[in-house]
């Protein structure tokens, strides 16, 4: 029941709730909200069967702004609550929203388990590499050396990669998007929605107040072309001006390297063709770091049956319900006259 044909075609604005949006002016969350509302409209989702579940954080305010059902829960626990929602009603379209702190600091475990169980949730992690709501402490995705109120001397611990973590957890759909890419982002969200089972999407989101420009080196207009590779299944991993660069396996190793594409085209240059069902390739792509380009798009998609469908079954509860009176009388009983 992931695709509905609503009686009348709703527009993006029909998915905006009546609540005043309260993020900082210029926050990347606005763009994601816009992208989401467009996605909902494009997919023709029904507001009444769509649910947004979130934890706590700036990102987690998201549900208030969608004219669907919404549950703003507690810090880190959204994947667990959403799992319960799906167990009770697999027909609902459930989106889970959280920040890097929410999903990878306090909530990393629930994220892992939702992914490995393959609960049919669309999990969107807004990664701004900082704790926004609590005023700018470093997060588990902050780069080493991040100066923040809790790390005045710069942070020391190595960050975790959201996508490598998801892959290591056994996710079957792992993708990436950028807040401001209003063409690509909805496409990625639609793929996440189409995937039955847990879909994990990391969205690079700019926190203009506490971590402005964290992703500028690959999201800024000038940098994007050279520093981003948008991956598409069955298409060569090319990027750069006029697509003249590509990624290939460094000969004799398990590493990716950039190769210039000559006139004979990508294949001749040994450029890899993206195979989104290849977990190792996805792992390589997820691990790309500057000076290599950052991989955006659907890194991995290899469906398996979703958890709640196996638990509950494809159909509604069994038509003939168990007879409790009979159950109580099963086994040894005796009569007192």
């Amino acid at each position, binding site marked *: 029941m992931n695709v509905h044909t609503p009686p009348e075609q709703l527009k993006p604005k029909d998915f905006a709730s009546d609540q005043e949006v309260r993020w900082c002016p210029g926050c990347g969350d606005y763009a994601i909200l816009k992208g989401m509302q467009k996605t909902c409209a494009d997919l023709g989702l029904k507001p*009444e069967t769509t649910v947004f579940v979130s934890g706590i954080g700036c990102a987690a305010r998201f549900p208030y702004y969608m004219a669907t059902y919404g549950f703003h829960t507690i810090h880190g626990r959204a994947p667990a609550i959403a*799992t319960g929602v799906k167990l009770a009603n697999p027909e609902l379209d459930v989106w889970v929203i959280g920040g890097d702190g929410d999903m990878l600091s306090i909530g990393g475990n629930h994220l892992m388990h939702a992914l490995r169980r393959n609960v049919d949730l669309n999990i969107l992690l807004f990664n701004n590499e900082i704790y926004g709501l609590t005023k700018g402490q470093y997060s588990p995705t902050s780069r080493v050396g991040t100066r923040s109120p809790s790390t005045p001397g710069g942070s020391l611990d190595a960050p975790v990669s959201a996508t490598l973590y998801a892959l290591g957890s056994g996710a079957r759909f792992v993708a990436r998007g950028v807040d401001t890419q209003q063409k690509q982002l909805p496409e990625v969200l639609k793929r996440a929605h189409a995937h039955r089972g847990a879909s994990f999407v990391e969205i690079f989101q700019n926190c203009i107040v506490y971590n402005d420009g964290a992703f500028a080196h690959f999201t800024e207009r000038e940098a994007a072309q050279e520093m981003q590779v948008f991956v598409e299944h069955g298409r060569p991993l090319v990027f750069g001006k006029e697509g003249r660069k590509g990624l290939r396996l460094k000969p004799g190793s398990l590493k990716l390297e950039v190769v210039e594409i000559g006139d004979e085209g990508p294949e001749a240059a040994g450029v890899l063709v993206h195979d989104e069902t290849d977990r190792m390739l996805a792992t390589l792509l997820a691990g790309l770091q500057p000076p290599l380009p950052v991989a955006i798009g659907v890194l991995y998609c290899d469906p398996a049956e979703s958890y709640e469908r196996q638990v509950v079954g494809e159909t509604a509860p069994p038509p003939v*319900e168990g007879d409790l009176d009979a159950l109580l009388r099963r086994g040894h009983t005796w009569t007192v006259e």
Partner: protein
Amino acid sequence: MEGASVLTPPRQELESAVVRFAGDSGDGMQLTGSQFTLATALAGNDLATFPDFPAEIRAPVGTTYGVSAFQINFGGRTIRTAGDALDVLVAMNPAALKVNRADVKPGALVIVDSGAFTAKNFAKAHYQANPLEDGSLDAYRVMEVDMSAATEKAVEGHGLSKKEALRCKNMWALGLVYWMFGRDRQPTVDWLESKFAAKPEIANANIAALNAGHAYGETAELPTGVRTYSVPAAKLPAGLYRNVTGTEALAWGLVAGCKLARLPMTFCSYPITPASQLLHSLAGLKSFNVTTFQAEDEIAAACAAIGASYAGSLGVTSSSGPGIALKTEALGLAISVELPLVVVNSQRGGPSTGLPTKTEQSDLFQAVWGRNGDAPLAVLAARSPQDCFEVAIEAVRLATRYMTPVMLLTDGYLANASEPWRIPSLSDYEAFPVSFHEEPEGFQPFARDAETLARVWAKPGTPGLMHRIGGIEKDYDSGNISYDPANHQRMTDVRADKIAGIARDIPEQGIEQGEAGGRLAVVGWGSTYGPISRAVANLRAEGADVSHVHLRHIWPLPANLEALLGGFDKLLVPEMNHGQLVKLLRAETLLPCAGLSKVSGKPFKIAELETAIRATLEG
């Protein structure tokens, strides 16, 4: 013991008797106990049983910490507890004797398998000398039988290995005890035949051992003081009965509650002793509209249950103390968003990991007051295995009617103990079907029922009711985020009033025994019901002016409780904790309740309560 033998005297009639089977974990004591229970129930006795497992999964054979025991108290009168002290102890090895001896009544019977009383086993049980010979058992009547040898002989010809043959020892012992109490062997024979249907040689060998034990009693010349007994049938109300443990009754009660509410159940839990059994029981009831979910931890379990309630199922979560502690933050969310939720706490010894396999009642404070913020919820406690059924239904009723989490307190004793239960019918209970809100016109997610103050339940999937909820303070009607000071006061008040109002919807507090006023009321809650009830009965029989009041509703308290308790000169509150209900009662009523605390991982003995009550009456 001197071996002077006499003729078996005629059966002595007993009002009740307490028997404990104790042996190594591998000796099959739990099976032996259940078979004896069944035979006893069929003989028409009232009874109560309590198994006592070792904490270790499978401790080395012969060690004291590997001893497994099963106790049964049965009689012709109403049985309230598994019994203070033993009339008969069956000890299959030295370790079993060592661990259990202290509970035997002076002068009572100790039956030992002398074949297992070897030097090797003495060492394992850390006995310096043979306890059968060092005079340490002089206070008891001891019957030594080499059951090992007798069993081996009995099963000869059934083609069993020595190891397999010795596994029939428990049936030999059971046969002997059956003879002693005049029990019918047939149900056990039937059970053995069906259990070992695929291995008839095992079935037959066990039956042979059972018969041999029985025959030994009938034919052997027994030592002085070993008698046979008859325990008359109890006068139980007519009806169809079964034996039930607290866990089974709880599982079925939750199913019954959901049926009465017309809701599916989503049961989310994480294993923990002694709560896991409930998960196991419900995992087999999928066809009863039950979904079970083993979550990654207790927080996830509570959260998934909340998510399920949000989506229109009844979310139930279950754990024991440490796991309930982890659910605290999530419970606050359920209170704040006002969703129904049933939280079962099978209490065990604390603090921290404490004594996982031992019983305690020390999570009352946590249940009533253990959350951040002003966060009221309803708290119920079950008093006996069968009462778990009733309390589970009540928990579902309150959770759905008041859109609130309900904490249901049970404990390690109740979880494992069993008693005969007159099987009810679902039609004996009034249904309380939930009606989800569906009307978009004027819809406000926090609109409240004027009487119950419960908010509407509008589940995702309902057209036209799209709304947002969350744990931040909400506007009184719309549920939108509100930082308004007056609104916060109003919401805090209404959350408290809603729960307080439950007092109007529950029965007045009754009196279990005695008058509604007088010199002393013993006020209990939970699984202390059995021993308090018996102790009060005993003392009343002696003419003492003492009544018994037992609470099911811990929060809110019944409306008439203060007035009721006010009618007594003294109030004594026995608890298996360091004094929790007693503080709650003092705070709520300002009555001078005195506590009686026992924190040893073991239920109260009747005698302990009698002593305390006497002291209070005299004091």
